Protein backbone atom coordinates (compact mmCIF):
# COMPACT_ATOMS: atom_id res chain seq x y z
CA UNK A 1 0.00 0.00 0.00
CA UNK A 2 1.14 3.55 -0.69
CA UNK A 3 0.05 7.15 -0.92
CA UNK A 4 -2.51 6.22 -3.53
CA UNK A 5 -4.10 3.84 -1.00
CA UNK A 6 -4.40 6.64 1.55
CA UNK A 7 -5.72 8.91 -1.15
CA UNK A 8 -8.40 6.47 -2.25
CA UNK A 9 -9.33 5.61 1.33
CA UNK A 10 -9.88 9.25 2.26
CA UNK A 11 -11.90 9.88 -0.90
CA UNK A 12 -14.00 6.81 -0.20
CA UNK A 13 -14.61 8.18 3.30
CA UNK A 14 -15.64 11.54 1.86
CA UNK A 15 -18.06 9.93 -0.58
CA UNK A 16 -19.73 7.60 1.88
CA UNK A 17 -19.98 10.19 4.65
CA UNK A 18 -21.49 12.72 2.27
CA UNK A 19 -23.97 10.07 1.17
CA UNK A 20 -24.86 9.21 4.77
CA UNK A 21 -24.83 12.82 5.92
CA UNK A 22 -28.53 13.03 6.73
CA UNK A 23 -28.48 9.68 8.48
CA UNK A 24 -25.60 10.77 10.70
CA UNK A 25 -27.37 14.03 11.44
CA UNK A 26 -30.54 12.18 12.40
CA UNK A 27 -28.61 9.96 14.79
CA UNK A 28 -27.02 13.05 16.31
CA UNK A 29 -30.42 14.77 16.55
CA UNK A 30 -31.67 11.96 18.76
CA UNK A 31 -28.91 12.18 21.37
CA UNK A 32 -26.75 15.13 20.39
CA UNK A 33 -27.10 18.34 18.47
CA UNK A 34 -27.81 17.31 14.91
CA UNK A 35 -24.53 18.36 13.37
CA UNK A 36 -22.45 15.20 13.06
CA UNK A 37 -23.37 14.69 9.40
CA UNK A 38 -22.50 18.29 8.53
CA UNK A 39 -19.31 18.18 10.61
CA UNK A 40 -17.87 15.05 9.06
CA UNK A 41 -18.92 16.02 5.55
CA UNK A 42 -17.29 19.42 5.88
CA UNK A 43 -14.14 17.79 7.21
CA UNK A 44 -13.74 15.07 4.61
CA UNK A 45 -14.61 17.44 1.77
CA UNK A 46 -11.72 19.57 2.97
CA UNK A 47 -9.51 16.50 3.18
CA UNK A 48 -10.29 15.74 -0.47
CA UNK A 49 -9.39 19.29 -1.46
CA UNK A 50 -6.20 19.06 0.55
CA UNK A 51 -5.18 15.78 -1.08
CA UNK A 52 -5.89 17.28 -4.52
CA UNK A 53 -3.18 19.81 -3.83
CA UNK A 54 -0.61 17.39 -2.46
CA UNK A 55 2.71 16.62 -4.22
CA UNK A 56 2.58 13.23 -5.85
CA UNK A 57 5.72 12.14 -4.02
CA UNK A 58 4.29 12.83 -0.54
CA UNK A 59 4.78 9.64 1.50
CA UNK A 60 1.55 7.95 2.72
CA UNK A 61 2.26 8.77 6.37
CA UNK A 62 2.57 12.48 5.52
CA UNK A 63 -0.61 12.35 3.49
CA UNK A 64 -2.47 10.84 6.41
CA UNK A 65 -1.06 13.46 8.77
CA UNK A 66 -2.25 16.17 6.40
CA UNK A 67 -5.66 14.58 6.31
CA UNK A 68 -5.74 14.59 10.11
CA UNK A 69 -4.63 18.20 10.34
CA UNK A 70 -7.29 19.14 7.84
CA UNK A 71 -9.98 17.47 9.94
CA UNK A 72 -8.75 19.35 13.02
CA UNK A 73 -8.78 22.61 11.10
CA UNK A 74 -12.18 22.26 9.51
CA UNK A 75 -14.54 20.10 11.56
CA UNK A 76 -14.86 21.68 14.98
CA UNK A 77 -17.14 19.79 17.32
CA UNK A 78 -15.91 16.77 19.23
CA UNK A 79 -15.34 14.57 16.21
CA UNK A 80 -12.89 16.99 14.56
CA UNK A 81 -10.07 16.98 17.08
CA UNK A 82 -10.67 13.31 17.85
CA UNK A 83 -10.56 11.85 14.33
CA UNK A 84 -8.12 14.59 13.31
CA UNK A 85 -5.61 13.72 16.00
CA UNK A 86 -6.31 10.07 15.31
CA UNK A 87 -5.34 10.34 11.65
CA UNK A 88 -2.35 12.48 12.54
CA UNK A 89 -1.12 9.80 14.90
CA UNK A 90 -1.80 7.12 12.30
CA UNK A 91 0.27 9.05 9.76
CA UNK A 92 3.08 9.51 12.23
CA UNK A 93 3.06 5.77 12.91
CA UNK A 94 3.52 5.11 9.19
CA UNK A 95 6.69 7.17 9.25
CA UNK A 96 8.35 8.42 6.07
CA UNK A 97 8.30 5.23 4.00
CA UNK A 98 6.80 5.15 0.51
CA UNK A 99 4.81 2.03 1.21
CA UNK A 100 3.36 0.14 4.15
CA UNK A 101 2.11 -3.38 4.74
CA UNK A 102 -0.59 -4.98 6.88
CA UNK A 103 1.45 -4.66 10.05
CA UNK A 104 1.95 -1.00 9.23
CA UNK A 105 -1.79 -0.57 8.85
CA UNK A 106 -2.36 -2.21 12.22
CA UNK A 107 0.17 0.08 13.84
CA UNK A 108 -1.38 3.11 12.20
CA UNK A 109 -4.92 2.34 13.27
CA UNK A 110 -3.74 1.39 16.72
CA UNK A 111 -1.99 4.75 16.98
CA UNK A 112 -5.20 6.45 15.85
CA UNK A 113 -7.11 4.66 18.59
CA UNK A 114 -4.54 5.65 21.21
CA UNK A 115 -4.62 9.24 20.06
CA UNK A 116 -8.39 9.36 20.28
CA UNK A 117 -8.41 7.78 23.72
CA UNK A 118 -5.63 10.03 24.94
CA UNK A 119 -7.46 13.18 23.89
CA UNK A 120 -11.02 12.11 24.65
CA UNK A 121 -10.43 9.78 27.60
CA UNK A 122 -13.30 7.54 26.55
CA UNK A 123 -13.37 3.99 27.79
CA UNK A 124 -14.94 1.08 25.97
CA UNK A 125 -18.67 1.13 26.61
CA UNK A 126 -18.90 4.93 26.89
CA UNK A 127 -20.88 5.03 23.62
CA UNK A 128 -18.31 6.78 21.43
CA UNK A 129 -16.03 6.41 18.43
CA UNK A 130 -13.91 4.13 20.60
CA UNK A 131 -16.65 1.48 20.69
CA UNK A 132 -16.38 1.01 16.94
CA UNK A 133 -12.70 1.73 16.44
CA UNK A 134 -11.48 -0.40 19.37
CA UNK A 135 -12.99 -3.69 18.14
CA UNK A 136 -11.98 -2.84 14.56
CA UNK A 137 -8.33 -2.44 15.49
CA UNK A 138 -8.41 -5.63 17.56
CA UNK A 139 -9.93 -7.62 14.70
CA UNK A 140 -7.47 -6.19 12.17
CA UNK A 141 -4.52 -7.07 14.38
CA UNK A 142 -5.83 -10.58 15.01
CA UNK A 143 -6.35 -11.18 11.29
CA UNK A 144 -2.95 -9.83 10.28
CA UNK A 145 -1.16 -11.67 13.06
CA UNK A 146 -2.96 -14.88 12.08
CA UNK A 147 -1.61 -14.40 8.54
CA UNK A 148 -4.97 -13.85 6.84
CA UNK A 149 -4.96 -12.05 3.47
CA UNK A 150 -5.12 -8.31 4.21
CA UNK A 151 -8.47 -7.84 2.47
CA UNK A 152 -10.01 -10.45 4.75
CA UNK A 153 -8.49 -8.94 7.87
CA UNK A 154 -9.84 -5.54 6.88
CA UNK A 155 -13.26 -7.07 6.30
CA UNK A 156 -13.06 -8.52 9.82
CA UNK A 157 -12.22 -5.02 11.06
CA UNK A 158 -15.19 -3.48 9.26
CA UNK A 159 -17.51 -6.18 10.61
CA UNK A 160 -16.18 -5.59 14.12
CA UNK A 161 -16.67 -1.84 13.73
CA UNK A 162 -20.26 -2.36 12.66
CA UNK A 163 -20.91 -4.75 15.52
CA UNK A 164 -19.37 -2.25 17.90
CA UNK A 165 -21.50 0.45 16.35
CA UNK A 166 -24.69 -1.55 16.83
CA UNK A 167 -23.61 -2.49 20.33
CA UNK A 168 -23.71 1.20 21.25
CA UNK A 169 -27.51 1.14 20.99
CA UNK A 170 -28.25 -0.27 24.46
CA UNK A 171 -25.45 1.70 26.09
CA UNK A 172 -25.90 4.77 28.28
CA UNK A 173 -23.52 7.45 27.03
CA UNK A 174 -20.78 8.53 29.40
CA UNK A 175 -18.87 10.86 27.10
CA UNK A 176 -19.82 13.65 24.74
CA UNK A 177 -23.14 15.44 24.47
CA UNK A 178 -25.18 12.28 24.63
CA UNK A 179 -24.08 11.78 28.24
CA UNK A 180 -26.21 14.79 29.26
CA UNK A 181 -29.27 12.74 28.46
CA UNK A 182 -28.52 10.16 31.13
CA UNK A 183 -30.75 7.14 30.66
CA UNK A 184 -32.47 8.77 27.73
CA UNK A 185 -29.39 8.08 25.62
CA UNK A 186 -30.16 4.36 25.84
CA UNK A 187 -31.76 2.88 22.72
CA UNK A 188 -29.98 5.11 20.21
CA UNK A 189 -26.98 4.32 18.05
CA UNK A 190 -23.98 6.57 18.56
CA UNK A 191 -23.32 8.88 15.59
CA UNK A 192 -19.55 8.89 16.05
CA UNK A 193 -19.41 5.11 16.19
CA UNK A 194 -21.51 5.09 13.04
CA UNK A 195 -19.21 7.38 11.06
CA UNK A 196 -16.31 5.31 12.33
CA UNK A 197 -17.89 2.19 10.84
CA UNK A 198 -18.24 4.11 7.55
CA UNK A 199 -14.55 4.96 7.68
CA UNK A 200 -13.70 1.27 8.18
CA UNK A 201 -16.03 0.26 5.35
CA UNK A 202 -14.28 2.78 3.10
CA UNK A 203 -10.96 1.19 4.06
CA UNK A 204 -12.35 -2.25 3.26
CA UNK A 205 -13.40 -1.17 -0.23
CA UNK A 206 -10.06 0.53 -0.81
CA UNK A 207 -8.04 -2.50 0.17
CA UNK A 208 -10.33 -4.88 -1.74
CA UNK A 209 -9.84 -2.88 -4.94
CA UNK A 210 -6.08 -3.14 -4.56
CA UNK A 211 -5.98 -6.85 -3.90
Amino acid sequence: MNTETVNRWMRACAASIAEQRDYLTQLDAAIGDADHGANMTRGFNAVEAKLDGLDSDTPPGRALMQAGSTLVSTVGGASGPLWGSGLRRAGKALGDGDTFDGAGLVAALDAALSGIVELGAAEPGDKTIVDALGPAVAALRAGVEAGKPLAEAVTDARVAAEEGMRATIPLQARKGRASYLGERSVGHQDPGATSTALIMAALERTVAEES
Partner: protein
Amino acid sequence: MSTQAAVVKKFMNDPETMVPDALAGIATAHAGLVRVDMANQLVIRADAPVSGKVGLVSGGGSGHEPLHGGFVGAGMLDAACAGAVFTSPVPDQMAEATKAVNGGAGVLHIVKNYTGDVLNFKLAAELAEDDGIEVQSVVLDDDVAVQDSLYTAGRRGTGATVLAEKIAGAKAEAGGSLADVAGICRKVNEHGRSFGVALTSCATPSSGTPIFDLPADEIEVGVGIHGEPGRRREKMKPASDLVEEMLEPIVSDLKLAKGDSVLAFVNGLGGTPLLELYLLFNEVTKNLGAQGISVDRSLVGNYITSLEMAGCSITLLRLDDELTGLWDAPVKTAALRW
Protein backbone atom coordinates in the same frame (compact mmCIF):
# COMPACT_ATOMS: atom_id res chain seq x y z
CA MET B 1 -51.34 17.43 18.67
CA SER B 2 -47.74 18.41 18.39
CA THR B 3 -46.42 21.89 19.00
CA GLN B 4 -43.41 21.32 16.81
CA ALA B 5 -43.13 22.84 13.42
CA ALA B 6 -42.44 20.40 10.63
CA VAL B 7 -40.10 22.86 9.01
CA VAL B 8 -38.49 25.88 10.61
CA LYS B 9 -38.18 28.74 8.14
CA LYS B 10 -35.09 30.88 8.49
CA PHE B 11 -33.93 34.16 7.04
CA MET B 12 -30.88 33.04 5.12
CA ASN B 13 -29.48 32.60 1.66
CA ASP B 14 -27.80 29.24 2.11
CA PRO B 15 -27.24 27.22 5.29
CA GLU B 16 -23.54 27.04 4.48
CA THR B 17 -23.06 30.82 4.39
CA MET B 18 -25.35 31.69 7.26
CA VAL B 19 -22.62 32.32 9.83
CA PRO B 20 -20.31 34.39 7.59
CA ASP B 21 -23.30 36.35 6.25
CA ALA B 22 -24.32 37.23 9.80
CA LEU B 23 -20.74 38.09 10.74
CA ALA B 24 -20.62 40.52 7.84
CA GLY B 25 -23.72 42.16 9.30
CA ILE B 26 -22.10 42.41 12.73
CA ALA B 27 -19.02 43.99 11.16
CA THR B 28 -21.11 46.83 9.68
CA ALA B 29 -23.55 47.24 12.54
CA HIS B 30 -20.84 47.54 15.19
CA ALA B 31 -18.00 49.01 13.20
CA GLY B 32 -16.85 51.33 15.95
CA LEU B 33 -16.83 48.62 18.57
CA VAL B 34 -15.38 45.61 16.78
CA ARG B 35 -13.65 44.47 13.64
CA VAL B 36 -14.43 41.14 12.05
CA ASP B 37 -11.81 38.77 10.64
CA MET B 38 -13.97 37.07 8.02
CA ALA B 39 -11.36 34.49 7.04
CA ASN B 40 -11.18 33.18 10.59
CA GLN B 41 -14.71 34.08 11.66
CA LEU B 42 -13.52 36.23 14.54
CA VAL B 43 -15.17 39.22 16.16
CA ILE B 44 -12.33 41.28 17.60
CA ARG B 45 -12.39 44.35 19.79
CA ALA B 46 -11.71 47.34 17.54
CA ASP B 47 -8.63 48.47 19.46
CA ALA B 48 -7.12 45.01 20.06
CA PRO B 49 -4.52 44.14 21.11
CA VAL B 50 -4.70 46.40 24.15
CA SER B 51 -1.12 46.70 25.24
CA GLY B 52 -0.42 45.36 28.71
CA LYS B 53 -3.95 44.04 29.19
CA VAL B 54 -4.75 40.36 29.53
CA GLY B 55 -6.65 39.30 26.41
CA LEU B 56 -9.91 37.40 26.74
CA VAL B 57 -10.92 34.96 24.03
CA SER B 58 -14.06 32.90 23.98
CA GLY B 59 -16.02 31.24 21.27
CA GLY B 60 -18.11 28.27 20.41
CA GLY B 61 -20.69 27.11 17.96
CA SER B 62 -22.94 29.78 16.47
CA GLY B 63 -26.65 29.92 17.23
CA HIS B 64 -26.21 31.31 20.76
CA GLU B 65 -26.18 35.00 19.81
CA PRO B 66 -25.51 37.49 21.26
CA LEU B 67 -23.00 35.10 22.91
CA HIS B 68 -20.06 35.44 22.22
CA GLY B 69 -19.60 38.07 19.51
CA GLY B 70 -22.07 40.45 21.16
CA PHE B 71 -19.86 40.52 24.23
CA VAL B 72 -16.72 41.76 22.54
CA GLY B 73 -15.71 45.23 23.62
CA ALA B 74 -14.24 47.28 26.44
CA GLY B 75 -14.74 45.56 29.79
CA MET B 76 -15.60 42.14 28.40
CA LEU B 77 -14.14 39.95 25.65
CA ASP B 78 -11.30 40.87 23.30
CA ALA B 79 -12.29 38.29 20.71
CA ALA B 80 -14.94 35.71 19.97
CA CYS B 81 -14.52 32.78 17.57
CA ALA B 82 -17.63 31.66 15.70
CA GLY B 83 -18.04 28.05 14.69
CA ALA B 84 -20.74 26.60 12.48
CA VAL B 85 -24.15 26.49 14.14
CA PHE B 86 -23.87 24.39 17.32
CA THR B 87 -20.36 23.29 16.35
CA SER B 88 -17.20 24.36 18.11
CA PRO B 89 -14.83 26.51 16.10
CA VAL B 90 -11.52 24.92 15.16
CA PRO B 91 -8.16 25.40 16.86
CA ASP B 92 -6.81 27.51 13.99
CA GLN B 93 -9.47 30.16 14.56
CA MET B 94 -8.88 30.22 18.28
CA ALA B 95 -5.13 30.48 17.80
CA GLU B 96 -5.59 33.41 15.41
CA ALA B 97 -7.87 35.11 17.92
CA THR B 98 -5.30 34.56 20.64
CA LYS B 99 -2.62 36.19 18.52
CA ALA B 100 -4.86 39.09 17.60
CA VAL B 101 -5.61 40.03 21.21
CA ASN B 102 -2.28 39.29 22.84
CA GLY B 103 -1.20 42.56 24.41
CA GLY B 104 1.79 40.97 26.10
CA ALA B 105 0.09 40.05 29.36
CA GLY B 106 -1.16 36.65 28.28
CA VAL B 107 -4.52 35.45 27.06
CA LEU B 108 -7.39 33.75 28.86
CA HIS B 109 -9.51 31.20 27.02
CA ILE B 110 -13.05 31.04 28.37
CA VAL B 111 -14.42 27.68 27.34
CA LYS B 112 -17.89 26.22 27.78
CA ASN B 113 -17.69 22.62 28.91
CA TYR B 114 -18.63 20.64 25.83
CA THR B 115 -16.29 17.97 24.52
CA GLY B 116 -15.91 19.73 21.19
CA ASP B 117 -15.16 23.14 22.69
CA VAL B 118 -12.79 21.73 25.28
CA LEU B 119 -10.80 19.66 22.78
CA ASN B 120 -10.56 22.37 20.15
CA PHE B 121 -9.53 25.01 22.69
CA LYS B 122 -6.97 22.55 24.09
CA LEU B 123 -5.34 22.17 20.69
CA ALA B 124 -5.58 25.94 20.19
CA ALA B 125 -3.79 26.64 23.46
CA GLU B 126 -0.98 24.34 22.33
CA LEU B 127 -0.72 26.23 19.04
CA ALA B 128 -0.69 29.60 20.84
CA GLU B 129 1.95 28.45 23.25
CA ASP B 130 4.03 27.31 20.30
CA ASP B 131 3.80 30.95 19.24
CA GLY B 132 5.11 31.99 22.64
CA ILE B 133 1.85 33.35 24.01
CA GLU B 134 1.02 32.51 27.59
CA VAL B 135 -2.46 31.01 27.72
CA GLN B 136 -4.67 29.95 30.58
CA SER B 137 -8.03 28.26 30.10
CA VAL B 138 -11.06 28.25 32.32
CA VAL B 139 -13.78 25.75 31.54
CA LEU B 140 -17.27 26.81 32.58
CA ASP B 141 -19.56 24.05 33.84
CA ASP B 142 -22.44 25.63 35.69
CA ASP B 143 -25.44 23.60 34.56
CA VAL B 144 -26.83 21.71 37.53
CA ALA B 145 -29.20 19.74 35.33
CA VAL B 146 -26.27 17.47 34.53
CA GLN B 147 -24.63 15.70 37.40
CA ASP B 148 -20.90 16.21 37.45
CA SER B 149 -19.85 12.62 37.73
CA LEU B 150 -17.73 9.97 36.15
CA TYR B 151 -20.73 8.99 34.10
CA THR B 152 -21.06 12.14 32.01
CA ALA B 153 -18.88 14.57 30.12
CA GLY B 154 -19.42 16.77 33.18
CA ARG B 155 -21.79 19.65 33.68
CA ARG B 156 -22.42 21.87 30.68
CA GLY B 157 -21.33 25.47 30.40
CA THR B 158 -24.41 27.69 30.10
CA GLY B 159 -25.60 30.97 31.63
CA ALA B 160 -22.65 31.54 33.96
CA THR B 161 -20.50 31.98 30.85
CA VAL B 162 -22.07 35.39 30.24
CA LEU B 163 -21.40 36.43 33.82
CA ALA B 164 -17.84 35.08 33.69
CA GLU B 165 -17.09 36.97 30.51
CA LYS B 166 -18.38 40.20 32.04
CA ILE B 167 -16.62 39.82 35.36
CA ALA B 168 -13.32 38.48 34.05
CA GLY B 169 -13.42 41.22 31.41
CA ALA B 170 -13.76 43.84 34.14
CA LYS B 171 -10.82 42.32 36.02
CA ALA B 172 -8.65 42.43 32.91
CA GLU B 173 -9.71 46.00 32.16
CA ALA B 174 -8.71 46.93 35.71
CA GLY B 175 -5.21 45.63 35.06
CA GLY B 176 -5.44 42.19 36.62
CA SER B 177 -2.71 39.68 35.77
CA LEU B 178 -3.47 36.55 33.78
CA ALA B 179 -3.59 34.60 37.04
CA ASP B 180 -5.97 37.16 38.56
CA VAL B 181 -8.27 37.14 35.56
CA ALA B 182 -8.30 33.35 35.35
CA GLY B 183 -8.86 33.23 39.10
CA ILE B 184 -11.92 35.47 39.06
CA CYS B 185 -13.29 33.57 36.09
CA ARG B 186 -12.96 30.33 38.05
CA LYS B 187 -14.62 31.98 41.01
CA VAL B 188 -17.64 32.89 38.88
CA ASN B 189 -17.80 29.30 37.74
CA GLU B 190 -17.67 28.04 41.32
CA HIS B 191 -20.30 30.46 42.54
CA GLY B 192 -22.64 30.30 39.55
CA ARG B 193 -25.19 27.60 38.76
CA SER B 194 -27.83 27.31 36.05
CA PHE B 195 -30.87 25.29 35.03
CA GLY B 196 -32.80 25.41 31.73
CA VAL B 197 -36.18 24.34 30.38
CA ALA B 198 -37.49 24.26 26.83
CA LEU B 199 -41.03 24.79 25.60
CA THR B 200 -40.12 23.99 22.00
CA SER B 201 -37.19 22.56 20.10
CA CYS B 202 -35.17 24.39 17.47
CA ALA B 203 -33.76 23.54 14.07
CA THR B 204 -30.24 23.95 12.77
CA PRO B 205 -30.10 25.69 9.40
CA SER B 206 -28.62 22.66 7.70
CA SER B 207 -31.26 20.21 8.93
CA GLY B 208 -34.25 22.57 8.86
CA THR B 209 -36.41 20.40 11.09
CA PRO B 210 -36.71 20.58 14.87
CA ILE B 211 -34.23 18.49 16.82
CA PHE B 212 -36.94 16.93 18.97
CA ASP B 213 -40.70 16.81 19.06
CA LEU B 214 -42.72 17.95 22.01
CA PRO B 215 -46.43 17.38 22.66
CA ALA B 216 -48.57 20.49 23.11
CA ASP B 217 -48.67 20.22 26.90
CA GLU B 218 -45.15 19.03 27.66
CA ILE B 219 -41.79 20.66 28.24
CA GLU B 220 -38.19 19.47 28.34
CA VAL B 221 -36.64 20.05 31.73
CA GLY B 222 -32.88 20.31 32.18
CA VAL B 223 -31.91 21.37 28.66
CA GLY B 224 -28.68 22.94 27.52
CA ILE B 225 -28.21 25.37 24.68
CA HIS B 226 -27.92 23.09 21.67
CA GLY B 227 -31.50 22.09 21.08
CA GLU B 228 -30.81 18.79 22.72
CA PRO B 229 -33.56 17.09 24.71
CA GLY B 230 -33.35 17.67 28.45
CA ARG B 231 -32.98 15.35 31.39
CA ARG B 232 -36.68 14.60 31.52
CA ARG B 233 -40.01 15.50 30.02
CA GLU B 234 -42.78 16.96 32.16
CA LYS B 235 -46.20 18.50 31.87
CA MET B 236 -46.30 22.26 31.38
CA LYS B 237 -46.97 24.01 34.67
CA PRO B 238 -47.54 27.51 36.03
CA ALA B 239 -44.50 29.77 36.04
CA SER B 240 -44.30 29.88 39.83
CA ASP B 241 -44.11 26.09 40.07
CA LEU B 242 -41.62 25.87 37.25
CA VAL B 243 -39.36 28.49 38.79
CA GLU B 244 -39.49 26.68 42.11
CA GLU B 245 -38.47 23.46 40.37
CA MET B 246 -35.62 25.21 38.56
CA LEU B 247 -34.31 27.11 41.57
CA GLU B 248 -34.29 24.18 43.96
CA PRO B 249 -31.23 22.35 42.55
CA ILE B 250 -29.38 25.65 42.07
CA VAL B 251 -30.00 26.87 45.58
CA SER B 252 -29.07 23.53 47.07
CA ASP B 253 -25.93 23.13 44.93
CA LEU B 254 -24.75 26.62 45.88
CA LYS B 255 -25.84 26.00 49.49
CA LEU B 256 -27.56 29.37 49.47
CA ALA B 257 -29.15 30.32 52.75
CA LYS B 258 -31.05 33.14 54.40
CA GLY B 259 -29.06 36.34 54.24
CA ASP B 260 -27.11 35.42 51.11
CA SER B 261 -26.93 37.81 48.21
CA VAL B 262 -27.12 36.75 44.57
CA LEU B 263 -27.15 37.98 41.03
CA ALA B 264 -30.17 36.44 39.27
CA PHE B 265 -29.93 36.01 35.53
CA VAL B 266 -33.11 35.02 33.70
CA ASN B 267 -32.11 34.16 30.18
CA GLY B 268 -34.28 33.52 27.16
CA LEU B 269 -33.32 30.68 24.83
CA GLY B 270 -34.22 32.71 21.75
CA GLY B 271 -37.92 32.28 21.05
CA THR B 272 -39.37 33.44 24.35
CA PRO B 273 -40.77 36.98 24.53
CA LEU B 274 -39.25 39.41 27.00
CA LEU B 275 -42.67 39.73 28.66
CA GLU B 276 -42.37 36.12 29.82
CA LEU B 277 -38.77 36.57 30.92
CA TYR B 278 -39.69 39.49 33.19
CA LEU B 279 -42.56 37.45 34.55
CA LEU B 280 -40.15 34.61 35.32
CA PHE B 281 -37.73 37.04 36.92
CA ASN B 282 -40.54 38.21 39.17
CA GLU B 283 -41.15 34.62 40.24
CA VAL B 284 -37.44 34.21 40.92
CA THR B 285 -37.28 37.23 43.22
CA LYS B 286 -40.46 36.17 45.00
CA ASN B 287 -39.25 32.63 45.50
CA LEU B 288 -35.78 33.61 46.68
CA GLY B 289 -37.21 36.42 48.80
CA ALA B 290 -39.35 33.90 50.65
CA GLN B 291 -36.14 32.01 51.45
CA GLY B 292 -34.43 35.15 52.70
CA ILE B 293 -32.05 35.25 49.72
CA SER B 294 -31.61 38.73 48.35
CA VAL B 295 -31.43 39.42 44.61
CA ASP B 296 -28.99 42.32 44.54
CA ARG B 297 -28.07 42.30 40.86
CA SER B 298 -29.95 41.01 37.86
CA LEU B 299 -29.91 40.41 34.16
CA VAL B 300 -33.04 39.61 32.15
CA GLY B 301 -33.06 38.96 28.43
CA ASN B 302 -31.88 36.78 25.57
CA TYR B 303 -28.13 36.53 26.12
CA ILE B 304 -27.17 32.88 25.56
CA THR B 305 -29.63 31.34 23.20
CA SER B 306 -30.37 28.15 21.37
CA LEU B 307 -31.49 29.47 17.98
CA GLU B 308 -35.25 30.01 18.05
CA MET B 309 -35.94 27.66 20.98
CA ALA B 310 -38.70 28.84 23.30
CA GLY B 311 -37.48 28.37 26.82
CA CYS B 312 -35.40 29.89 29.54
CA SER B 313 -32.52 29.30 31.86
CA ILE B 314 -32.00 30.67 35.32
CA THR B 315 -28.51 31.34 36.65
CA LEU B 316 -27.74 32.40 40.17
CA LEU B 317 -24.35 33.80 41.09
CA ARG B 318 -23.51 34.08 44.77
CA LEU B 319 -22.25 37.62 45.22
CA ASP B 320 -19.57 39.12 47.39
CA ASP B 321 -18.13 42.63 47.22
CA GLU B 322 -15.47 41.66 44.70
CA LEU B 323 -17.92 40.08 42.25
CA THR B 324 -20.46 42.85 42.72
CA GLY B 325 -17.87 45.52 42.05
CA LEU B 326 -16.62 43.83 38.91
CA TRP B 327 -20.18 43.27 37.69
CA ASP B 328 -20.91 46.97 38.14
CA ALA B 329 -17.78 48.09 36.29
CA PRO B 330 -18.43 49.75 32.92
CA VAL B 331 -18.87 47.55 29.88
CA LYS B 332 -19.35 48.52 26.27
CA THR B 333 -20.26 45.74 23.90
CA ALA B 334 -22.99 45.25 21.31
CA ALA B 335 -25.22 43.32 23.71
CA LEU B 336 -24.23 44.49 27.17
CA ARG B 337 -23.36 48.00 28.15
CA TRP B 338 -23.46 50.24 31.16
